[in-house]
């Protein structure tokens, strides 16, 4: 059937080289996408998947100059020889950052932005805007300002904003990157609904495969090192080993089935955990695998390091960002803090670091009340790493950046040099010590910011979204590094939306909802509790679904068993 249709997007022997680069970023791409298809373009960071997308919407070469060879036809337009404006009439792009792309001052204005630019008369503009808003379900918020909206709502607005042009192709650039798990799930559902209603062609650029596969896609195009490695149906791709070889994490239930010795074939339809075919033999294999190993023993409770008692705080009088929060974190623990945006997670870390003063309640560190300690004094014990490394880096050279925190600490230059070099060694940055920071990748910059906090030798570090926007390899790098620090005795607390991180690296998790601590349990237990998942805007792990389908109880023990096994396998593999 595909043979009789003409493709809506067609790459033929297409290569692209940025003007500033010595090598082409895309090599010899041949790819046809047909009208009405849903295609996932997957690949690790730096694989060229974003460049591919930018060639389709015209950012390449019109905003980022470069050399195109071969041909690229997008909805009948010769893309490299048209203009960004012409392509915008055919391709609607929803960018990664829902905040950054909000142009208008209100929802209505933002949706209408493209219409304004094409000189649509006002009456018609209001009518089209209203219809687009209805399509994405945001019609009751037309007068809202961006800061009154949640991340998911902003994304709906962005989508409506490109729908007004009646584009035939929708392009989503990492739509899940800035959303909490529950909102991410809804985003995928929304994309699916819109595609069915409007019969557009949908392209999703994402490395979080399992999350996208929450709804069906027709094909997955795997990109790495600027080339297309696979262009297969999800069932076929998941049956092979290409994903793991190229740094894309396969869905956890698929990995679990492999561990249990089940042979994954396209006939098993492994694309969805609900519909994967499990015969009696498979179920028995999974059960046997679950029983085969004793469960890891629970550790004794450690001595308390950070104690929070009855903490309440509000930015204004009648608004409580945190109410009556109490918990204890022990020495040497690794804990994650989860919950939807605005649940009070970041505020909690600000209170602990002393950036804000609590309205009531106490914080003890190592048995000592922190009430009279200022930011600087607390910083010697508690390090804080922001989400965006660009917001922390203030020097041009790596050495200077890390040394900054030791200024005025009374140490001699030689002592400072020794401590900075030690820290750089711990962080694996020693070989780069005389490099300018601008030459580093995002992940390396993140490491520099961690180093610049570690140099003060804190007992506790708090990290805000340490793995946001990282692909599986960088994620593993950073997390293994943090685990190494933890093994050396540093207590680590992480604020995160990443459920894999929470499951794999933190035995314990604190879940927040509307400023209250609603759960303080093992991460596996939280992700197997549907009520908690709903409240804290998480998403249940597919391992839980798999355990239920096989009748394995308790499901959380199955999850723990998987994590332990997975860690061993990955440790051997590295």
């Amino acid at each position, binding site marked *: 059937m595909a043979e009789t249709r003409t493709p809506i997007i067609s790459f033929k022997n297409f290569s692209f080289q940025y003007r500033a680069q010595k090598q082409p970023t895309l090599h010899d791409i041949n790819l046809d996408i047909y009208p009405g298809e849903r295609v996932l373009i997957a690949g690790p960071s730096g694989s060229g998947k974003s460049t591919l997308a930018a060639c389709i919407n015209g950012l390449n070469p019109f905003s980022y100059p470069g050399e195109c060879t071969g041909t690229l036809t997008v909805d009948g337009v010769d893309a490299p020889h048209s203009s960004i404006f012409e392509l915008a*009439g055919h391709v609607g792009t929803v960018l990664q950052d829902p905040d950054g792309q909000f142009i208008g001052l209100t929802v209505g204005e933002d949706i209408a932005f493209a*219409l304004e630019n*094409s000189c649509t008369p*006002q009456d018609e503009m209001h009518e089209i805007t209203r219809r687009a808003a209805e399509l994405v379900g945001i019609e009751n918020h037309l007068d809202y300002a961006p800061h009154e909206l949640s991340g998911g709502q902003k994304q709906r607005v962005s989508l409506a904003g490109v729908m007004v042009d009646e584009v035939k192709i929708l392009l989503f650039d990492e739509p899940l990157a800035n959303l909490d798990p529950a909102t991410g799930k809804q985003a995928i559902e929304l994309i699916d609904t819109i595609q069915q209603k409007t019969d557009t062609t949908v392209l999703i650029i994402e490395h979080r495969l399992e999350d996208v596969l929450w709804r069906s896609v027709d094909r997955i195009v795997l990109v790495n090192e600027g080339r297309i490695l696979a262009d297969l149906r999800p069932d076929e791709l998941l049956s092979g080993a290409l994903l793991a070889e190229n740094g894309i994490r396969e869905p956890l239930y698929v990995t679990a089935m492999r561990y249990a010795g089940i042979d994954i074939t396209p006939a098993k339809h492994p694309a969805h955990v609900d519909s994967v075919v499990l015969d009696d033999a498979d179920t028995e294999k999974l059960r046997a695998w679950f029983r085969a190993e004793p469960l890891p023993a629970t550790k004794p409770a450690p001595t308390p390091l950070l104690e929070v008692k009855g903490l309440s705080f509000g930015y204004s009088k009648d608004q409580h960002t945190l109410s009556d929060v109490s918990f204890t974190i022990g020495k040497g623990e690794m804990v994650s803090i989860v919950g939807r945006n605005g649940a009070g997670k970041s505020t909690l870390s600000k209170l602990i670091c002393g*950036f804000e003063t609590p309205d009531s309640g106490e914080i003890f560190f190592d048995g000592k009340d922190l009430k009279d300690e200022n930011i600087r004094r607390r910083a010697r014990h508690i390090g804080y790493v922001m989400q965006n490394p*660009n917001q922390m*880096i*203030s020097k041009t050279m790596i050495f200077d950046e890390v040394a*900054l*925190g030791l200024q005025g600490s009374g140490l001699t230059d030689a002592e400072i040099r020794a401590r900075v070099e030690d820290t750089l060694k711990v962080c694996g940055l020693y070989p780069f010590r005389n490099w300018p920071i601008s030459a580093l990748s995002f992940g390396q910059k993140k490491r520099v910011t961690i180093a610049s906090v570690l140099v003060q030798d804190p007992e506790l570090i708090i990290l805000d979204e340490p793995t946001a926007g990282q692909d599986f390899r960088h994620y593993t790098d950073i997390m293994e590094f943090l685990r190494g620090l933890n093994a050396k005795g540093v207590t680590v607390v992480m604020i995160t939306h990443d459920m894999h991180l929470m499951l794999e690296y933190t035995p314990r998790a604190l879940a927040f909802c509307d400023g209250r601590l609603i759960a303080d349990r093992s991460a596996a237990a939280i992700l197997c509790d549907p009520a908690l998942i709903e409240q804290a805007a998480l998403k249940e792990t597919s391992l839980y679904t798999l355990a239920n389908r096989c009748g394995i109880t308790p499901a959380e023990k199955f999850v723990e068993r998987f994590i332990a096994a997975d860690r061993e396998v990955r440790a051997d593999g590295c």
Partner: protein
Amino acid sequence: MAANTVLNYIPRKSVVHDLTGTTKLAFFLLFTFASMITYNTWVLLGLMAVSLAVFRLSHIKLREVRFMLVFMLVFLALNDLFIFLFDPNQGTALYGTRTVLCHLLWRYDLTAEQLFYMFNISLKYFVALPVAILFISATNPSEFAASLNSIGISYKVGYSVAIALRYIPDIQRDYHSISQAQQARGVELGRSEPFFKRLKNSVSILLPLILTSLNRIDTISNAMELRGFGKHDKRTWYTRRPFARRDFIALAVGVVLLLISLTVTIRFGRFYNPFV
């Protein structure tokens, strides 16, 4: 929040807010022109009364525009000081008499004429200032761009100004969080530090602030281009409202005030002279 201290849009329900951006811009220009051409004290006092009345109507409180107000008053004080320093006899030359109140030093005599002249200059500030503040803080930034566009300024320029105004609160937030993180790393920015050290340390906030702002600009300009910004020489506006009766009334008032000011200036000269 800190966001309210610098010039930005303050939404309210008021007659002034209900006027279209174009009306406000036109009124602002007419009014400023009316106050620029004359030094007639009575006319200026009249204009100032109108100006303060309009400010009252807007329901915006003085507290909310404190920053602008203080900034302008400092500017006014400096202006008066320099007028006096450079030409202490300007008033005498203008009014034709010389009433020395006291001698200060060297060539500086304090004359009643000079004081009156500077009083008139200050009065001009008080006439224009409330209206200028209102134009900025009572005009919805998107209408702001539309209003600039309606008097012939390229919409790209208008939109850049509007976007810049809109990002001020975001950048303030960035500044705040960067500064907290830097303090946590031992960079002292607190009040206990000597002023020059604080100044030097605040540079360590500037670099990350500039970098994050540049990132913002990159994202927003891509988003705008992808949605056809700059495709045509013209564009339409979602928020532009049709002229209502109140707009015509406001414009008529502006024109009448300008005519009064012009008539008085032409018939009685630019200065009101109480010294003859």
